[in-house]
């Protein structure tokens, strides 16, 4: 067996057996559970029987595009290297006759597949439930598909960025939570070129519907890039982040335990 395929299976096994995988599966199902609970309550005559598609869509888009597709990559992809260093298991990886960068990229690929699965599998039921009355419409199906694929593309870009953070920084998860998360929200208030210094800007450019914004000021500054270009940029950025992470992994030193 190719050593990298062997490594992919090894990393995937670890991911699937970890507690994080189970917790994030549950967290991802929260919007669907809320929608099902609300629909059940409505059917029982609790909140009337009006169409709540817009409310559900707002919940779903807010939850996934402002929270889940940032959190899942941040958690899994920053840990590609950081977890190995923290657990000191990096000694078992970097004493193998496999190029460090390729080995880390293999682990990143395993975490990416799992992140895509988490996002994809939890967003799809939420979108279907949200649009339950319009599923036969071609336009609705197309919109759902584009939203779903955009979420996956966003997950790819955030994962690649988190991978790079994990290779560059000692505490990437903290930096990610306290800098990247707020930055992605804050940058949308900035006019001009600054907005382009975020991933969410390009994700929004692909979205077939506008992301719900509480602040009306946001709409004032809302700019977009043509969707095909935004897709290319997100893919290009992902490739660049992965390349930079691999390059850095070759040059950095690894200090574990006491000197």
């Amino acid at each position, binding site marked *: 067996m190719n050593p990298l395929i062997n490594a992919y299976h*090894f990393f995937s096994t670890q991911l699937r*057996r970890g507690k994080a995988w189970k917790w994030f599966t549950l967290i991802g199902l929260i919007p669907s559970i809320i929608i099902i609970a609300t629909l059940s309550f409505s059917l029982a005559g609790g909140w009337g029987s009006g169409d709540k598609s817009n409310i559900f869509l707002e919940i779903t888009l807010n939850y996934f595009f402002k929270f889940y597709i940032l959190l899942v990559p941040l958690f899994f992809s920053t840990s590609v290297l950081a977890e190995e260093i923290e657990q000191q298991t990096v000694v078992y990886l970097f004493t*193998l*006759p496999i*190029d460090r960068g390729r080995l880390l990229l293999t682990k990143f690929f395993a975490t990416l597949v799992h992140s895509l699965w988490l996002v994809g599998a939890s967003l799809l039921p939420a979108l279907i439930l949200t649009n339950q009355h319009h599923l036969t419409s071609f336009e609705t199906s197309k919109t759902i598909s584009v939203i779903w694929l955009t979420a996956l593309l966003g997950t790819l870009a955030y994962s690649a960025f988190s991978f790079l953070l994990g290779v560059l920084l000692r505490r990437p998860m903290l930096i990610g939570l306290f800098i990247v998360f707020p930055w992605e929200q804050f940058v949308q208030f900035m006019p001009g070129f600054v907005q382009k210094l975020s991933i969410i800007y390009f994700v929004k450019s692909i979205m077939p519907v506008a992301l719900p914004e509480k602040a009306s000021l946001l709409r004032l500054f809302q700019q977009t890039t043509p969707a095909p270009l935004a897709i290319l940029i997100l893919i290009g950025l992902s490739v660049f982040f992965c390349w930079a992470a691999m390059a850095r992994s070759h040059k950095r030193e690894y200090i574990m335990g006491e*000197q």
Partner: protein
Amino acid sequence: MNLVIQAENLSKWYGNVLGISEINLEIPPGVYGLLGPNGAGKSTLLKIMTGFLRPNLGQLRIFDQSPFDNPSLFKRIGYCPEYDAHYPTISGWEFILFRAKAFGLGETEATLAMQAVGLTEHMHKRIRQFSLGMRQRLKLASAIVHNPDLLILDEPLRGIDPLWRIKIIRLIREFGQKGKTVILSSHILPEVEAMTRQIILIHQGKIFALGDIDEIRTLLDSHPHQICVKTNNPRRLASFFLSDPHILGISFSKHDPSQVIFITHQRDHFYEKLLKILIEESFDLHEMSSPDDNLQNVFDYLIGRK
């Protein structure tokens, strides 16, 4: 002579903290004990050998190649780290099989490695269910699975039960007997003595001494040496040495009235004279020991702690 490890003016520091300084080493095949107190630079040296750190000055070559970011070299190197690092959610077998396959090997080699450390019975348990000793043996299995030419072992016997210590010591000696090289770092000095007579003493980032333990002992001739003698009349025995210029001190044990302790820097002369007195004066010799007769004391003497 084929040199396995060569270091030339090897230096490494972390900011203002010195790791190792101007280390020069030439190590041919064999088993070597790397000794030194905490902070002496052992870990830094081992991390440079295993390619995790890059020297600031000088160079280290293993099999004539630099180990930093050189994955192909690791086909010939096995490393067992000091710390209790493991993947808790996978089984011991999955871990060793992953390592074996990464080296292009298969289940046969993985099974042999598990057998060598006695883990075949428990190999399908998750590693988090392993005891400390079992995890330590698993680390050893991961280091030897590809039958490397150079084995770097950091505290290899930590947490291992006495029966398996003996087996692991035998395993390490056999490695050396096959013409391979083993560098082992340990704090438990009698264990090092059980595995090798070749030692490398490191202190304050420098190589303090390198060679056979007996050769290093010859360095000690000018250092004071303690010899404890238990006899039926220790005070009378002591009186024969009072005027001896080679005796630096004589003391009596508070806990054992039959014991007298001599301090000398001429051991050969002392033993010769003691033997003569014991015979001529008909002393009953109950016990004679040298508390300095182990690596810890050799080391303490050399670094000036005693």
